């Protein structure tokens, strides 16, 4: 070999060997010798890999076979035990007749490249993990609003529908939403946010706060938009509870003002009655005081039931005695308004499992509601409220029927809605809402039949035992 070329061969910054058909190393450069020792007479696989036989995939062999250049990535071990990643390139060496006499093998050390590659893969995996595990819904959308990628939370809540349109998945809509934040980001490249109500695969309505950000290509063009949504349903629920409390306070103070006026009136009649020695006036005034105190008591009980959702305090309750007690409580008020209170009680109805205080509040609310419906009805000469009880094998049925003003469809449909009242200044809009809540807590229901100007019939059905119900009495009012 000419001297300058041999020097080049010696100084190549990689491992250079020449191998014969038997994979014996017939020549090697300085760097090879330094790292792997003297090769003469030894096989390539012995030197490089300390193997007893040749490798399964051998680029030197391939080059001998087809006369072409080949390459392969290999892991080799130096004399001092270092593992080195190498990229192996092979090339045939021909004699004057064109026959391949040996193969030149050049192995470049790519350990550092491999380390960087591994780091890159690890860091990609780490970012993917963050993307997957971040506790909000993330989707990546193309300009057609198709979801091209989504994280785990998104897929769990909205399904794994990559390729579908965002609005189909999130909102079950056929067309794009008005003021789409993703669309705005595609237009102006800026971050946008919005509050949306979306529907999960389970059919739940979720309030979400969404943020959108552009994902740009190297040339600066927006390729995708990332949409990140946070579930703010609990915050909205809390807000709505606070609004309800505000409404409750306003409704209750309005109601209390009316009751205070009644109390004032009663006191005025008692005081002036005493001054005038007018016994009839004293009695009338005292009845007014009693009536309004009783109503304040009722309002306070309703507020308590509303304010504290409670697990029923279960006990065996004798239904006929309960109905009798409620009728006894309301009878004076009904009589005062000229409303007859009739009883239609099945004395053998027996016991049922219930919260006695809650059931009493439920029945008082309904019976009072019926008495009020009669009191404000000016179109009939006389009125009656009938309180009925039937004991069926599996359930207790309470019926409260009146021939008062009745309800139109709107009133009937909204009767159990919180703060809905058709009673003018007297109603808090709590009574029937709470009655319904109590019935539900007992796994029962309240049905309403009503016709305007004819009257109303409430039918309360409560299971005799909570054992037969789905949740075993775990529900709250």
């Amino acid at each position, binding site marked *: 070999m000419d001297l300058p070329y041999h020097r080049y061969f010696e100084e190549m910054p990689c491992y250079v060997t020449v191998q014969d058909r038997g994979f014996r190393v017939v020549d090697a450069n300085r760097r090879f010798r330094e790292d792997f020792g003297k090769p003469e007479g030894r096989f390539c696989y012995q030197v490089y890999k300390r193997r007893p036989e040749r490798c399964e995939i051998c680029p030197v062999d391939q080059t001998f076979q087809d006369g072409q250049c080949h390459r392969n990535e290999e892991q080799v071990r130096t004399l001092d035990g270092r593992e080195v990643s190498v990229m192996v390139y092979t090339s045939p060496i021909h004699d004057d007749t064109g026959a391949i006499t040996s193969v030149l093998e050049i192995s470049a050390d790519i350990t550092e490249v491999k380390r960087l590659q591994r780091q890159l893969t690890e860091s990609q995996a780490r970012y993917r993990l963050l993307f997957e595990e971040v506790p909000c819904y993330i989707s990546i959308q193309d300009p057609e609003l198709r979801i091209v990628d989504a994280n785990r939370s998104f897929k769990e809540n909205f399904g794994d529908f990559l390729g579908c349109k965002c609005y189909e998945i999130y909102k079950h809509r056929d067309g794009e939403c008005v003021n789409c934040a993703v669309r705005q980001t595609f237009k102006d490249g800026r971050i946008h946010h919005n509050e949306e109500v979306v529907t999960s695969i389970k059919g739940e309505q979720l309030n979400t706060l969404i943020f959108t950000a552009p994902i740009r290509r190297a040339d600066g063009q927006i390729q995708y938009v990332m949409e990140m949504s946070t579930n703010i349903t609990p915050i909205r629920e809390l807000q709505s509870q606070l609004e309800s409390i505000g409404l409750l306070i306003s409704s209750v103070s309005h109601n209390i003002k009316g009751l205070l006026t009644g109390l004032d009136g009663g006191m005025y009649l008692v005081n002036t009655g005493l001054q005038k020695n007018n016994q009839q006036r004293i009695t009338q005034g005292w009845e007014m005081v009693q009536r309004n105190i009783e109503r304040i008591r009722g309002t306070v009980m309703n507020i308590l039931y509303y304010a504290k959702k409670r697990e029923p305090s279960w006990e065996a309750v004798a239904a006929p005695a309960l109905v009798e007690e409620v009728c006894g409580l309301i009878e004076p008020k009904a009589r005062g308004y000229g409303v007859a209170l009739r009883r239609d009680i099945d004395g053998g109805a027996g016991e049922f499992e219930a919260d006695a205080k809650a059931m009493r509040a439920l029945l008082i609310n309904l019976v009072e509601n019926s008495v009020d419906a009669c009191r404000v009805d000016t179109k009939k000469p006389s009125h009656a409220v009938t309180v009925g009880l039937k004991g069926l094998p599996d359930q207790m049925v309470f019926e409260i029927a009146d021939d008062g003003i009745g309800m139109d469809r709107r009133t009937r449909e909204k009767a159990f809605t919180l703060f809905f009242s058709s009673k003018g*200044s007297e109603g808090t809009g709590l009574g029937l809402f709470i009655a319904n809540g109590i019935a539900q807590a007992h796994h029962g229901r309240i049905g309403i039949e009503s016709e305007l100007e004819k009257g109303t019939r409430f039918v309360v059905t409560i299971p005799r035992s909570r054992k037969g119900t789905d949740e075993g009495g775990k529900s709250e009012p």
Partner: protein
Amino acid sequence: MAAEKKTILVVDDEPDVRTFLSTLFEDSGYATVRAQDGNEALSRVKEKAPDLVTLDITMPNKSGVKFYREMKESAEWRKVPIIIVTGVSGEFKTFISTRKQVPPPEGYLPKPIDRNEILKLVKKLA
């Protein structure tokens, strides 16, 4: 012969409030007529126009507001002073006073009712 007593129409859906106001007015030398809603109040006015009306505005079926409008839109009864007596907050006074279609009420008193105040107002208006 003593001068004929002035008549006050007390309109309220709450019977205790009707009893209270009627007794209070009668003790102060007025005659009273009672009505439990706007429709009944209108019938009473048609029988004989009162010298003054105390009106609860929040009664079932909005009959209080309806009654107020009918009174103030009628040439015959427009001049009958009306005192609104209600538990709804003071904003209602602003609301009813800013309606262009009807004039504002002559008096406005919140519940619970201050006895001296209502008697003073009645004396001034009736």
